[in-house]
């Protein structure tokens, strides 16, 4: 998508976020995009027809006003659920491969290889890092807001969102965005003093300054742009927090841009001083979530492209299916596949990818036990685990409970007393009755048998 559109929409969202309650903003505006600016008309993509109706009815005026602040030509806003000018998800190939072989799905969450973020000191002699730029940052619904905010910040440092606070789990692109901001600001105005540091570095510098009895403050307080990664490590370090507080105030007072990154939002960082917390939430707080499937595929394709390698869609899809939360791992897996292919002179295809990823993908030996059945059944019917194992006897709970009994009996071949025990010590005759009831019902009622089918599918994952 066009960067300009993202920037415009980012600022509109920023405004709306202030006006609306958190729940309303999350429900109605998440996943919206500015699809097109066409003369005096703005076309906004909304994820579904319900959102379209609601936004049209309730937020139209606010959106129009916010857009007009950025682009005064706009007099008309339209909403669409069709992703026209927005990049579309990669289409599955339409040859025989689109029906793929069953593959074991990786259920294991990979441990984060918490590779220490490299950071550079960049006083005036900022060295741009070519690797991380805005144009090689793949956007999707998971990171759009953060991306637009970062762009805006790099265009007008200190003016729009100050501080900009980005948070999200490891390996989703926080550092990439920090670098992209630094690079972009540097490219626009090489005279800007950009200071990029991790909070750990900040702490160390602070400590060593104390030890040597030097004046600490100077170094950070002369920056035009201060970017600090992994802010969460400052938690619990009281003296450092105090020092940071003063640095922050000094910079903020002179409209110097501050960008912070953390693995969680300010309010969830334990033992963070209240005055710092409120300052972090002052400007813009944007989250970056793990990328969705399409974004992961796009990342792989882009990465392969930068290695001048043609990657088959089925290989990309395979890798993206199996590594699902961490971009660093995603790229690591691709690098491994490429290395393996060069080493053995084999083409990059699905079987090579399967072989290389074998070490990543733990065969899913899903252990299904009574508890899993209860959990999945409860989840399927959207009731709580406590309800299903409890004693409530309303229909919307009894039926799921009996379905769970039936599945435990049929699939796990558990004894009636054993099932009774797992359900919090009911009488075993209750179980016999429940199993029998669902058995007859599932034979006659297709809806019931489909429900059971779906739950079984959930069980084997």
């Amino acid at each position, binding site marked *: 998508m066009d960067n300009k559109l993202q920037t415009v929409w980012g600022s509109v969202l920023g405004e709306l976020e202030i006006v609306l309650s958190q729940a*309303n903003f999350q429900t109605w505006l998440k996943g919206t995009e500015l699809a097109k600016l066409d003369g005096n008309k703005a076309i906004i993509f909304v994820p579904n027809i*319900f959102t379209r*109706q609601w936004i049209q*009815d309730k937020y139209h005026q606010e959106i129009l006003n916010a857009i007009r602040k950025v682009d005064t030509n706009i007099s008309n806003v339209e909403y669409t659920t069709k992703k026209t000018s927005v990049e579309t998800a990669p289409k599955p190939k339409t040859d025989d491969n689109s029906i793929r072989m069953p593959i*074991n799905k990786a259920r294991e969450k990979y441990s984060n290889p918490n590779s220490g973020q490299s950071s550079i000191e960049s006083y005036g002699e900022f060295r741009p890092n070519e690797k991380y730029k805005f144009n090689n940052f793949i956007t999707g619904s998971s990171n759009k807001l953060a991306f637009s905010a970062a762009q805006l910040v790099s265009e007008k440092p200190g003016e729009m969102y100050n501080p900009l606070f980005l948070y999200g789990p490891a390996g989703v692109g926080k550092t990439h965005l920090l670098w992209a901001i630094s690079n972009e600001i540097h490219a626009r105005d090489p005279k800007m003093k950009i200071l990029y540091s991790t909070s750990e570095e900040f702490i160390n510098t602070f400590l060593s300054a104390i030890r040597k009895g030097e004046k600490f403050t100077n170094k950070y307080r002369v920056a035009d742009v201060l970017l600090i990664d992994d802010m969460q490590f400052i938690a619990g370090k009281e003296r450092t927090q105090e020092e940071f507080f003063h640095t922050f105030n000094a910079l903020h007072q002179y409209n110097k841009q501050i960008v912070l990154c953390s693995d969680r939002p300010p309010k969830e960082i334990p033992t963070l001083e209240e005055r710092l917390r409120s300052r972090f939430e002052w400007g813009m707080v944007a989250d970056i979530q793990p990328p969705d499937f399409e974004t992961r595929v796009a990342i792989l394709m882009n990465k392969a492209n930068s290695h001048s390698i043609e990657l088959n869609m089925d290989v990309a899809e395979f890798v993206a299916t199996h590594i699902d939360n961490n971009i660093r791992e995603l790229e690591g897996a691709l690098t491994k596949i490429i290395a393996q292919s060069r080493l053995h002179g084999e083409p990059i295809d699905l079987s090579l990818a399967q072989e290389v990823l074998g070490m990543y993908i733990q065969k899913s030996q899903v252990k299904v036990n009574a508890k899993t059945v209860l959990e999945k059944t409860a989840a399927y019917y*959207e009731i709580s685990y406590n309800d299903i194992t409890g004693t409530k006897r309303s229909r919307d709970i009894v039926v799921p409970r009996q379905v769970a009994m039936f599945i435990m009996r049929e699939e796990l071949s558990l004894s009636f007393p054993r099932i009774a025990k797992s359900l919090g010590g009911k009488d075993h005759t209750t179980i016999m009755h429940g199993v029998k009831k669902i058995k007859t019902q599932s034979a006659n009622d297709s809806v019931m048998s*489909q429900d059971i089918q779906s739950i079984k599918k959930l069980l*084997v994952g």
Partner: protein
Amino acid sequence: MKVAIKVKNLLKAVNICSRLVSSRSSLEVLGNILIETDKNILKLSSTNLDLAITTKLGAKVEKEGKISIPAKLLGELINSISEDTLQLIADDSNMTIKGSGIHSRLNGVSASEFPTLPKLTSTKSIKFSSEEIKKSFEKVVASVSIDESRPVLAGIFFSISSGQMVLAGTDSYRLSEIKSKYDSKEDISCIIPVRTVTELLRLISSEEVNEIEIIIGESEISFMVGDSQLISQLTEGKYPDYQKIIPESTTTTIECDKDKLVEAVKVSSVFARESSHGITLKVTKDELTLDAQMSDVGENTIKIPVKKTGKDASININAKYITDILSVINDKTVIIGINDKLDPLLINPKSKDNSEVHIIMPLRS
């Protein structure tokens, strides 16, 4: 709002609407049911923002109005009341329920907070026998993917063109397709989310009507089932060009009794408990042999008589997929077609003559 209403009508409507309500939504009002008068009827609606349901019921309306009430609360209350007729009196923020002995007041949320249901932009309308459409959908639902990461596969392909209706579902490992004659002036091709179809099937079961009407818009679909209307988003995207995968002919074709096959697969499944549920089908002379083994459990062989044409064959397949498919086939006799052991396996009910086709991708051994 002031209305008088039969409890049994209200109960039915509340139960229909409650199914869509999720208590986990971040927006509180989505856990509510919208109750509103429309001239001389009462309308109840609920939505989870993927689909919405509206159901009408007869009532004596004395004063018009609307309010939204927490679905769970309302459901529990109405389900346990033994009155015959109730009076509902509501202002913008709460509703009083009065019966001969009961008097309760429920806190609600103003109806203006409740999502407005999308207005349908289309008039493309088609009608179906509810029994027939239900049967057809049921046959393809089992093959649809439950993995939401590829939305297209978590939907059912629905098309009408040149006098034929086609329904298809696949999770990329197996596929089911139903064709039937249907004359319509309008050509239709869309993907309906499977969750919508499941709701539709439920609705057909509870509404007991002979005919349903489907209205298809550009990005939404609506089903009129008796007094209820289901509105859903259509899944955007291009459905995989699955036609190419369905083999036109097979080098091995067998005909066998469905019940015998069901039993044999069930027995084999005992020894196919690994994640792939793999069993081997071997066709020789007039016999189908099902082999299953698990190194730490044991192994099993079971044979059933079949009528074979073509050459001998052997193929590895997921036993669960066969069971799922056999459970939706009504015929007494099924036809199984096999080509190479890496090619898709075909299962058809004998009487249907390719108007009902199921295929399963084999396991690579």
